């Protein structure tokens, strides 16, 4: 494409940037090389996720059961709907970006401004959605009990629907002060204690005949194994060590801790890319308003950030597939 920046000082200087190998300007080619290297970084993360998943192929959490929440719709199970919405927002902002690039080719300052603005809005909606998704994931929903082996025991009713701890466990009033720095070892702190103790969960399970324990193990239909009533009580009494609510880097109520680790790491790294993309877009947006590219008679800068922005969208397409669908 013949949209070189009109910069007279490099004209004719083969080694000073005046040369265009592959008919792409210096800036665009470097952006492509950066994208290739960044794509390899993301592939590394996703392949590492695949490694851990293959390692625990029969124990991995089912993403459909983890990401079922949609803002403002409490208590409804709507798997994938919100993630699909996020995907659509990002694709849509990619479209406005490419329209901005197209308007730039026609040197239409007004249109470039509008489309850049819409792209930034789309990016902000996406980052906000991801923050909400994180908050929901960290807070958790049903609660679970962790065993000595580090496995997670969840609770279901007779129909196989998940039951939250708060629905059958009665928390008794107990005196148990959190360990603080002021008493005992000053360098040892204790995090927030879970709402219930394992003993309370055991008595709650004994009191409710219809509640069963579900383990992490997947059966041949790809569903989690539900234990019999006797097995449920035995497993919980013998192996339960503590109650887990929500998720963090060490443990999570959805299953393997690695699932949460990769969720935080991969979507976090991608979210960071979106965030920096929004910042770069804002800078270019102001440059457009100030008329920097109008004076240059060239909007190639918009095209270059556009490449980055599309790349972020491209990565999300893969994250969506490998984290939420497969």
């Amino acid at each position, binding site marked *: 494409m013949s949209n070189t920046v009109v910069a007279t000082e490099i004209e004719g200087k083969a080694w000073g940037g005046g040369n265009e190998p*592959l008919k792409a300007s210096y800036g665009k080619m470097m952006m492509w090389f950066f994208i290739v290297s960044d794509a390899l970084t993301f592939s590394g993360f996703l392949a*590492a996720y*695949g490694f851990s998943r293959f*390692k625990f*192929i029969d124990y991995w959490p089912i993403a459909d059961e983890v990401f079922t929440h949609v803002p403002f719709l409490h208590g409804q199970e709507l798997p994938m709907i919100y993630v699909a919405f996020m995907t659509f927002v990002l694709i849509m902002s990619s*479209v406005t970006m490419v329209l901005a690039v197209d308007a730039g080719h026609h040197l239409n300052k007004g249109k470039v401004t509008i489309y850049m603005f819409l792209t930034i809005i789309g990016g902000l909606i996406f980052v906000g959605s991801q923050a909400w998704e994180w908050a929901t994931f960290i807070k958790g929903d049903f609660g679970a009990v962790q065993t000595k082996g580090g496995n997670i025991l969840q609770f279901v009713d007779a129909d196989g629907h998940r039951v939250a701890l708060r629905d059958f466990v009665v928390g008794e009033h107990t005196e148990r002060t959190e360990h603080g720095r002021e008493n005992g070892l000053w360098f040892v702190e204790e995090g927030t204690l879970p709402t219930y103790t394992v003993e309370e969960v055991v008595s709650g399970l004994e009191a409710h005949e219809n509640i069963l324990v579900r383990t992490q193990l997947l059966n041949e239909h790809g569903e989690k194994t539900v234990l019999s009533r006797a097995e449920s009580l035995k497993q919980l009494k013998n192996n339960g060590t503590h109650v887990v609510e929500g998720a963090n880097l060490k443990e999570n109520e959805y299953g393997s801790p690695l699932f949460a680790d990769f969720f935080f790491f991969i979507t976090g790294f991608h979210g960071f890319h979106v965030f920096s993309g929004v910042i770069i877009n804002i800078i270019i947006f102001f440059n457009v308003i100030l008329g920097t590219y109008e004076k240059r008679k060239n909007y190639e800068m918009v095209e270059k950030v556009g490449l980055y922005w599309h790349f972020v*969208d*491209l990565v999300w397409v893969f994250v969506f*597939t490998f984290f939420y669908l497969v």
Partner: protein
Amino acid sequence: MAHAHKLEIFRGLVKFKSNTQKIWGVLIFLTIVTAIEVVLGIYKPESLMAKFIGMKILNWIFIILTLVKAYYITWDFMHMRDEVKALRRMVVWTAIFLILYLIFILLQEGGYIESIYTTGYIKTDF
């Protein structure tokens, strides 16, 4: 400034009148593909649960549809279609070759460790 955009997609099956029109056309296509993925992901048809080369057919469909989406994002949104052949190959084949290698190594080893967990003397379920 006149820019030469290649305006046909699907190997010339659909030809657009302007670049803007092509962008909207590609958006519609990508939205349809995403919708198919989401519907399949929610309903998970029993017929697609059979295994094919070590993975469920459904998962193969997801991966293929993802690659289709990636192709159209790169080719039409990132204008790879309009770049010279050498740049295209340099970017695409470098990435594809290295990524395939990475995936092969990690998944192979992950599967090996899984086999040790299930057939060896390591207890994980307690």
